[in-house]
């Protein structure tokens, strides 16, 4: 089964003081994947940037750089893309290797694939492991448990034991507070589960993207009873490396294994590697970003 989506991701900054110069880096161009076909992508920036350039980053993501050199009081970045997702099968969780085997494999592996996975085993700026994280993760990792069974169990636990609460955290909230208050947003849950996996010696990466929800139902959509969280803003989840299978995506916010409703934009070690839009501005004073994301399913022809 395949599904095609139109995505629109708008970010608006209104500054209280004029900005004279600003430099931005955006992870807004979706990645092309075997299960994700990109039909087209446009990024509109208002005011018109003085300079644009692109680069593929260390993790293989598309980065879009732009610079504004005229004085402005607001900035609008609108990213439009059309993406087709192909449904894929999940490996039978019970048949995946025991998690300790994966841990030992990563610790000694030399294959190019394992080397790539090794990038995602260690602490990074937003994912700092600790004994508290380890204590939280441990119950999902009894000896000999197949890795996928373990991480799916961990995902269930995070989904059940944590409350989705956009007011509870900010970008700067450290993991230990998220763990303490049991509240957060998709980014916090993704970071938490990544930290749990890494503390067990496993490779886990952060995935940034969009999730399709039924907020703007198209005529072909019959049932919208299962609405996913993550609309209105970009979404985040994680992927865990399973030798022999590859990277398996997990969405602890929605307690689901992403398939044909999650559009992947970029991945990295954590949010810091792939934040959708960052920048350095001269001037600006206070600024309040407004983000809107809409993902609509295109009627199948």
């Amino acid at each position, binding site marked *: 089964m395949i599904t095609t989506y139109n995505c629109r991701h708008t*970010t608006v*900054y209104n500054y209280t003081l004029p900005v*004279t*110069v*600003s*430099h*931005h*880096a955006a992870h807004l161009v979706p990645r092309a994947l075997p299960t994700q076909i990109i039909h087209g992508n446009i990024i509109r920036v208002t005011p018109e940037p*003085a*300079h644009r*350039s692109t*680069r593929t*980053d*260390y*993790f293989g993501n598309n980065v879009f*750089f732009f*610079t504004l*050199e005229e004085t402005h009081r607001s900035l609008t970045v609108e990213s439009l893309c059309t993406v087709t997702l192909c449904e894929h099968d999940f490996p039978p969780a019970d048949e995946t290797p025991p998690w300790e085997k994966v841990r030992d494999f990563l*610790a000694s592996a*030399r294959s*190019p694939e394992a*080397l790539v996975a*090794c*990038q995602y*085993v*260690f*602490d990074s700026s937003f994912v700092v492991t600790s*004994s508290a994280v380890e204590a939280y993760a441990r119950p999902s990792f009894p000896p000999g448990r197949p890795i996928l069974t373990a991480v799916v169990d961990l995902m269930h636990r995070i989904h059940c034991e944590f409350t989705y609460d956009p007011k509870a955290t*900010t*970008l700067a909230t450290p993991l230990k507070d998220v763990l303490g208050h049991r509240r957060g*947003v*998709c*980014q916090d849950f993704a970071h938490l589960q990544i930290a749990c996996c890494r503390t067990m010696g496993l490779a886990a990466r952060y995935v*940034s993207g969009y999730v399709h929800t039924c907020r703007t139902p198209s005529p072909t959509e019959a049932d919208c009873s299962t609405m996913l969280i993550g609309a209105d*803003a*970009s*979404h*985040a989840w994680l992927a865990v490396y399973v030798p022999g299978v590859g990277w398996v995506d997990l969405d602890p916010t929605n307690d689901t294994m992403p398939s044909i409703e999650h559009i992947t934009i970029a991945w990295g070690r954590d*949010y810091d*590697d792939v*934040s*959708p*839009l*960052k*920048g*350095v*501005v*001269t*001037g*600006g004073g206070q*600024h309040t*970003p407004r*983000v809107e994301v809409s993902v609509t399913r295109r009627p199948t022809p």
Partner: protein
Amino acid sequence: MTEKAMSQVAVKKSVASLLQYSVAARGTFDEMTGPDGQLRPHWADFLAALATLPDGALQKRREKGLRLIRDSGVTYNVYGDKAGKDRPWELDPIPFLIAADEWRILEESLIQRATLLNLILHDLYGAQKLLKDGYLPPSLVFSHPEFWRPLHGASLPRNTSLVLYAADLARSPDGRWWVIGDRTAAPSGAGYALENRIITARIHPDIYKNLWVERLAPFFLKVHETLRRLSPRQGDMPRIVLYTPGPYNETYFEHAYLARYLGITLVDGEDLTNRGDRVYLKTLNGLRQVDVMIRRTDDGYCDPLELRSDSSLGIAGLVQAVHAGTVSVANGLGASVLESPAWLAFLPRLCRVMLHEDLKMPSVATWWCGQKKELNYVMSNLDTLCVRHLLPSLAQPLCGRNLSSAERVNLIERIMASPHNYVAQEIVSLSTAPLWNMNRLESRPVVMRIHLTSYNSSYVAMPGGLTRVAPADGLSTVSMQHGGTSKDTWVLSEKPVEPITLLRPAGAPSKLVRGARDLSSRVADNMFWMGRHLERSELTTRILRAALASHVEGAGQGAGLAQEETLAIVLSMLSGHSVIGDQAADPPCGGERRNPTTLPQESVMRQVIRIHCDPEHFSGLGHSICHLQRIATVVRDRLSLDTWRAIWRLAETVRCTGRGVISQPDGDLDEMLLRLNEVIQMTEALSGLVMENMTRDLSWRFLDAGRRLERAMHVLDLLAGTVEAGTAEDSPVLDVVLGISDSMMTYRARYLVPPALVPLADLLLSDESNPRSLVFQLSALQEHMDAIGVDRMPGTFTPEQKAIIAMLATVRTLDLESPLSVGCAHKVIGNICREMTLKLRTLSEILNLQYFTHAVETLPLFTKP
């Protein structure tokens, strides 16, 4: 007796009488004497020369060295030191000597090491073959916070990422040199080594000339040539800058020093901007593209967009410019990853793999805990090892044998929690060298830092280096941060050395350059304010002196009412006007005038002086001097050494005066008057230095414009104060005002009558030939602005030119003797003072808008998913 035999005798004498040198620690290597107590051969000539010096001469030379250091302002900033952020550099008069044959081995070994490290860097940020082929454990690289992924794949100019490299060396008891640390990001110390050389050569001119000591200048010529060749642009002279994190960095002195020595522009992050993936220097004449940067800023802080978003020292977009290949950064961003001591454990193997030869100089034995076998070894040998975190900033090295059992358990826990973050190293025993202390030679542990630069696809070493001496015997960590002194390092040649200096490069004469270096907006801003504070300091002191003089004279004659009033008026003219709060000062214009005699005059006077010596007090003299010193630090590379010294001495004198006032509240006021005279002479000398010795370039123009503007405002303040006081025509206040404005002579030459208001006002406002008059300042400002704004279209005027022209017209057409003014001269003068003061303030704002960077913060911007 042959010459040789004579020197032998001299040496014996020296060892016997002068030295009484005994090696403190057994089982270490002493640089000067062998295990049998005999002098090592390469020290013989130096000691023979020392022995011929008269008694006490070495101590005198040491003191001369200290004075030279103070005079040239060599400093080293100590973090977290509130008292004074600069600490004078310390230098021992005994250099560290290296024989020619030994130097050859050192140089060869370090060239090999630099070559190897450069190849490793190239691989890590490129193909990563070392990881793929299994020569490096992935965790070593991937867990390191200084492995900066955004730099991966960045094109390296001429495949050189490691342009400048330094190694810290120690000598083990068996006489072999070991590398104890690699400096690969932004190695410091070469500038200090150079300064040490200049000073040591000056205190031992005789010895330095007679011993064949390798010169340092050729090395810096090569550095310069290498930097020039790094330019991505072909053709014309590349623009090279030294990018400093700023005056609060511990080695800022060196940044300014090297920039000046190499003839390149010193910049900080605010001076640079990225436009269209190119880096530009913000100058008064617009943006100028930068081709090559020596960076002294830590890797992570160089770009807030792609590296550390919390950096306020960086250039947003620098990484992208590096990727675009429009600018060369030396050393390459990301090079700091090699400073991790964990690498020491892998270098021997990597050397065989990459260079197909053995590593020539060993590193201190190092075990990286990220590997099982090594971790087990460390755990079972903790007593003989020192454990370090991979980031030196995170943890002091801990030696197992010095730990309590609780500390030990704690350390083991920390290692086990993240073993890949720790290394253990053998405890280093350093060699000792003689240090001149309390009139005798003592043996002290030393560490030597040797610098290399890439050159012609290989490396060359600076024949010399920075030798640092541990503060006390037996300490194995040596750092200027933790105190300690330094030594010049002499590499002794086997043949006479050609004297070379960077100032006159040999060979074909180079192209003449005038007004060479770019003036950044930030420097212009600082020069302008330096001018203002310089002038303000002098003028404030003049008023203080006038007030004090009037008080001291008055006290002699018995205080009359007129005299008291004069004092009150004079005090009201002090800048800020409210320095002594409600007790004696007056509002600048209008308002109720308090009776100044409510407080005994003498205590008022003392209070005023105390306030002005207090740097904390806003708008006082001390405050101005503080600003002056701070700005001078920031633009130090623009000031001549004499100017720098003069500012330093001025600040010191004002501080001393302040201390005197506080420690002796009833001190002699006459004495104080002398002090103030001294301060005035110093500020005048400083002005003279600036006028006579500074190149008439744009930075001088901004400095002088600042002085002119300040002086103009001051003249208006003085005159307004006089008019406000409503003093009678023959008031002594007029005398005092003439005194303060240093115009007494001019007045007397013009008028035979005692001072009167209208002629005084004319002299201070409209007299074109009086260097203290308003019109004189405006003319000077006009000249500066004409010179600064040369790029404008002919026939058009910049906003600041227009403002000055308008003011000049007003002042030049002022007619104080016209019938309209008769009888109300007070009012006319008062009005003109107010009007002009407002206009000068507007002018200052215009200059700010036109030329100076606004200190607008750059902020990181994020969106939350």
